[in-house]
């Protein structure tokens, strides 16, 4: 059986959870097995995971799931794995999934692949999964040899497949330990698609000259339904919030479309965005290294180009 832990935030399933279930269902099909989803705490519409391929959806209730603590969540997922006899466990490669993966590997004595990009290849008795390594500069194929296999699926890698039916949510009785961590506050920007999940990202750098000019970036992002991001110097100068910083030391993203405005493209920035499917670079300097990593480029003054692009996008969206 393939068990998928479906992540939620504020009681709502994340897109990453739907992707993980889609992946889990396809893996189960390869193995001639079934895919079962697990939710922890109060989750709305958990039954819709059936639409993405879960044949069953289990929920564990418990006050301890109100805030995320890897120790509490990993204990519950490990117990569910053992109780249900799952041999493959799928997580999302989010900040939550990343802190669970290692714990589950240690607890279940299992091999793990963090940030999987492909369905398992089970030919020849192996269990091979690919993932990005060296900050996106290469792809490695891992072979997992333990009886239980753990996979954290990279975001925006698998197209959602919604051809199943909603299923009833069944309660699973599991006692989770109390948390040793006390959450004092959570500050999260509401109403935005978080960067690791975003399919379109509009990002800007020092070429913007100052935070007062960000209105045009936000407008373009709004028209496109994109999430805004920034380069390191911009976050360091407090022009933009820290959580918008993409790059080696910030968030690593992998959207379908990354639009870089006034960012030169230092190797550390590229390390965080080079897994984007399509990259557009807007820069007045034709020698900017970013153009070498771009699919489309516009050499010009961003203060003229960006409003024009926004206008063209508006026209396209209205058509």
């Amino acid at each position, binding site marked *: 059986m393939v068990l998928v832990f479906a992540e939620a935030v504020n009681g709502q399933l994340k897109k990453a959870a739907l992707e993980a279930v889609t992946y889990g269902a396809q893996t189960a099909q390869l193995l001639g097995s079934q895919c079962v989803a697990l939710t922890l705490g109060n989750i709305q519409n958990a039954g819709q995971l059936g639409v993405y391929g879960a044949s069953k959806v289990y929920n564990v209730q418990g006050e301890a799931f109100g805030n995320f603590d890897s120790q509490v969540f990993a204990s519950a997922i490990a117990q569910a794995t053992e109780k249900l006899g799952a041999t493959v466990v799928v997580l999302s490669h989010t900040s939550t999934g*990343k802190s669970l993966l290692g714990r589950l590997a240690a607890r279940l004595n299992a091999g793990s692949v963090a940030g999987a990009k492909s369905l398992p290849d089970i030919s020849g008795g192996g269990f091979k999964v690919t993932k990005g390594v060296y900050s996106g500069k290469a792809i490695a194929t*891992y072979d997992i040899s333990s009886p239980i296999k753990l996979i954290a699926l990279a975001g925006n890698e698998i197209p959602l497949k919604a051809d199943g039916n909603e299923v009833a949510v069944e309660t699973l009785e599991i006692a989770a330990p109390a948390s040793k961590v006390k959450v004092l506050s959570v500050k999260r920007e509401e109403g935005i698609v978080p960067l690791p999940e975003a399919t379109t990202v509009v990002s800007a750098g020092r070429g913007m000259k100052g935070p007062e000019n960000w209105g045009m970036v936000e407008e373009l992002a709004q028209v496109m339904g994109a999430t805004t991001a920034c380069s390191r110097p911009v976050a360091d100068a407090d022009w933009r919030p820290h959580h918008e910083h993409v790059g080696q030391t910030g968030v690593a993203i992998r959207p379908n479309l990354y639009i870089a405005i006034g960012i030169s493209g230092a190797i550390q920035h590229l390390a965080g965005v080079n897994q984007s499917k399509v990259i557009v670079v807007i820069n007045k300097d034709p020698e900017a290294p970013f153009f070498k990593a771009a699919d489309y480029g516009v050499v010009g003054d961003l203060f003229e180009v960006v409003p024009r692009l926004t206008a063209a996008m508006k026209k*396209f969206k209205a058509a």
Partner: protein
Amino acid sequence: MKLLVCVSKTPDTTSKISFTADGTKFNDAGITFIMNPYDEWYALVRACELVEKNGGTVTLINVGGADNDQTIRKGLAIGATDAVRVDAEPKSALFIAKQIAEHAKSQNYDIIFCGKESIDYNGSEVGAMVAEYLDLPFISYASKLDVNGATATVERDIEGGVETVEVNGPFVVSAAKGMAEQRIPNMMGIMKAKSKPFTVVPAVSFPDYAVPVSYTMPKAKTGVKLVAPDNMEELVRLLHEEAKVI
């Protein structure tokens, strides 16, 4: 305070990555190796700062061969009190975590630090594994860490924001940008490092359950297509019709 910092050795950030002709091994010819930046700049430096303020020791641990000794000495020069190297080829995250947990289980560390991920395998796994082996809380992506008596307050990066947590008693933390500033070892530090305790211990036997068996390079970009700055309708058309991303 008794602190442990887990460090790994990685290729320099700007390295050009290549593999052996059969695609099974990393080609280390011409590669400069460094201490993994998250382990060094954030985890190790913050641990040293805490001990300089509150007293105590910072032990540095690495799993690897003798060619890692130079990296470990740098950690001692930055300010670690002593170092342990587990003598083994680190092939999988769980193997590495097992070695660290074996060392730590009898040592009663107050905080075990690691970087948020290594810049080679980008797994972010070892810290969580060590925490599970030792049955400790794990606080990942910490950008700020303060200790007041037995209580630690930690800010951690979450998707689209920041979470502040409090923890009493020992825990494992993974360090992200913001926790400390990079520190360049000075001559005094480098001299002192030479006489600091540095032990090499054998590894405990443990299997490798998940190992890379081959590598490929991602498809290279075919070259940038330039669009005139006064023709953004054309860029929109290309993104829609050719790239199919809008």
